[in-house]
């Protein structure tokens, strides 16, 4: 049975070999916009261990979206080394990146990004359909994930029949269905009211409690507060990298920044 064939509990299948799940060393990202080159990231280094809950914070234009694209293997660094689950993605061809995204990363977006006129069950099956090898019973796997997110009675509902919170739960189920190692959320509560936001943040907290590595990209301090570690980005550089709440160390500096070579 292949890895994706099993219906695993949330956040299972994570291998903690002590190496960072995500590590960036001297990463630069320069976009060429016409004649101008925009330095989106400059000499960024960080490491995220399996099981962490990290918020990447910063105002718009700070480079946090670029960081999220890189961590999500949607983009590649211009210079430096970026390893995801042990693989340096800097020079990988696009179809290998696609496979990496499929197996390793679960995406949650601000606008949910559900397909129109498609049932919840089919939305969640989508990553399994692109998996190679394709699991034998994608519908059963998708159903279990939806049930785990409290949507067992919404399997046949399209996005237009679901509330915002329900849509985001479908998106989370979709992100989790392939048992990824990283859950990458981009402003996941940006389109939700505060009550629903709290519920979604509780889902993330529960997932992290079960061992899922979560990287949250946001510009809202309220949302970032839920994470255990906060990386502050400004003008393409990391200006702060701290543990928060009960995990906070004396001095507020994260051990990970100090640990870099």
């Amino acid at each position, binding site marked *: 049975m292949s890895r994706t064939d099993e219906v695993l509990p949330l956040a299972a299948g994570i291998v903690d070999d002590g190496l960072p799940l995500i590590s960036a060393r001297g990463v630069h990202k320069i976009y060429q916009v016409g004649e101008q080159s925009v330095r989106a990231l400059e000499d960024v280094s960080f490491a995220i261990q399996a099981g962490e809950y990290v918020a990447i914070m910063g105002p718009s234009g700070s480079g946090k979206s670029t960081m999220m*694209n890189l961590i*999500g293997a*949607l*983009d590649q660094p211009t210079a430096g080394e970026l390893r995801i689950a042990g693989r340096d993605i800097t020079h990988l061809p*696009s*179809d290998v990146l*696609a*496979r990496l*995204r*499929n*197996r390793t990363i679960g*995406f949650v*977006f601000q606008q949910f*990004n559900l*397909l*129109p*006129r*498609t049932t919840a069950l089919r939305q969640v099956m*989508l*990553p399994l*359909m*692109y*998996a190679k090898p*394709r699991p034998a019973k994608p519908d059963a796997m998708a159903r279990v994930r939806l049930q785990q997110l409290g949507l067992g009675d919404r399997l046949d509902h399209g996005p237009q029949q679901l509330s915002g919170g329900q849509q985001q739960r479908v998106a989370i189920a*979709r992100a989790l269905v*392939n048992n990824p190692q990283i859950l990458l959320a981009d402003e996941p509560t940006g389109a939700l009211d505060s009550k629903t936001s709290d519920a979604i943040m509780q889902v993330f907290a529960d997932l992290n409690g079960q061992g899922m590595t979560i990287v949250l990209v946001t510009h809202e301090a309220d949302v970032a507060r839920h994470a255990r570690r906060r990386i502050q980005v400004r003008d393409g550089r990391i200006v702060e990298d701290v543990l928060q709440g009960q995990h906070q160390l004396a001095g507020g500096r994260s051990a990970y920044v100090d640990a870099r070579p």
Partner: protein
Amino acid sequence: MTVLDFIEIAGRAIVTNALRSALTTLGIVIGVASVIVMGAVGAGARSEVDRQISNLGTDVLVVNPSARLYGGRSSGAGTNLPLSEVDLAAIESKVPGVMAISGQLWASATVVRGKANTWTRIWGVHEQYLELRNWSVASGRPFTAEDNAVGRRVALMGQSVVKVLFGDADPVGQTFRARNMPFTVIGVLSAKGRSLSGDDHDDSILVPMSTARRYLIGWRQVINNQVGQISVKFEEGSDLALMQGEVEQVLRESRRVPPGDDDTFNVGNLTEAIKARTAAQATLSWLLGATAAISLIVGGIGIMNIMLVSVTERTREVGLRKALGASGSDIARQFLIEAVTLCMLGGLAGVAVGIGAAYLMVSLAEWPIVIAPEMALLALAAAAGTGVLFGFLPARRAAQLNPIDALRSE
């Protein structure tokens, strides 16, 4: 993703934009329909030619008097001395392998029975004529040698004439009048249909050769034993070119053509004349084929256009699919299969429209058509090929979309 998954996605996308999809495939529908009609008309014409050839009988040579030259000027076909019973007898006795032989004289005449009358062709023929033309008597009896020898006013009647003169009544044993003389119907010919030029074979009456000479054609006789055109049927698979030489040799002797002089007759092969016609029909087929190709190309461009629109509209979807792990080739396949599915749906509609149009042509224009299943398959294959060809560019564009830009697009 399996092909079936992609087809399902394509189906959903097409249904979502049902009207747009239908309008887009119109070019393909027309293209495929014209392929079907082209094939039906072409095959119909071919089968009609085959029927003609078998009507005339294969392995048949036809002899006519040739044009006579007056001072180097041609006086027109058949102006030479007519062919006679002597010529016919010479061929029959001296040329080997003759299965059937008959002369053919004709006259147009009004035939009357009571108040009913019609203008038809009356043919004077020998007894073997029916065998020669693969024709038969549906009821009654054929001519005998005695009918011809005595010159009896007996007739075999084609079914179209029967219908006019006798309606549903049995004409055998009844009489009709032609040139103010009574003739007795001794048999009804089996139905033979139309010739390529549209002549109704069933609109004719056969009488014995000597009867025709005596009562119908007498006023334009040059010699008293003329037989008009001579048709000779040989054993199946005979070498007609060789037989033609034999016939020519025998006729030169019987007509006393001095050595070195031109023949006073023509020996022809009807089958070849009809085959030459097929070539003309092939040209028509090519023309229709070109029309079909053009509409398929134009239709394909329409498909490409709408697929490009579709890719642009669904940029965000492409970005999402890529984020979830779709590779460039997954995306390309999705759009390619959508284009092909669109074309195949258009193709199926085109097959239906084409078959409908072909049947309409049958009922309106009485054109012979044959709908070959392989033509429908060919048309569908052409539609699918159009989809692949014109879906390629939009599919490649979709595959090359940057997932980040695609996700960010509105």
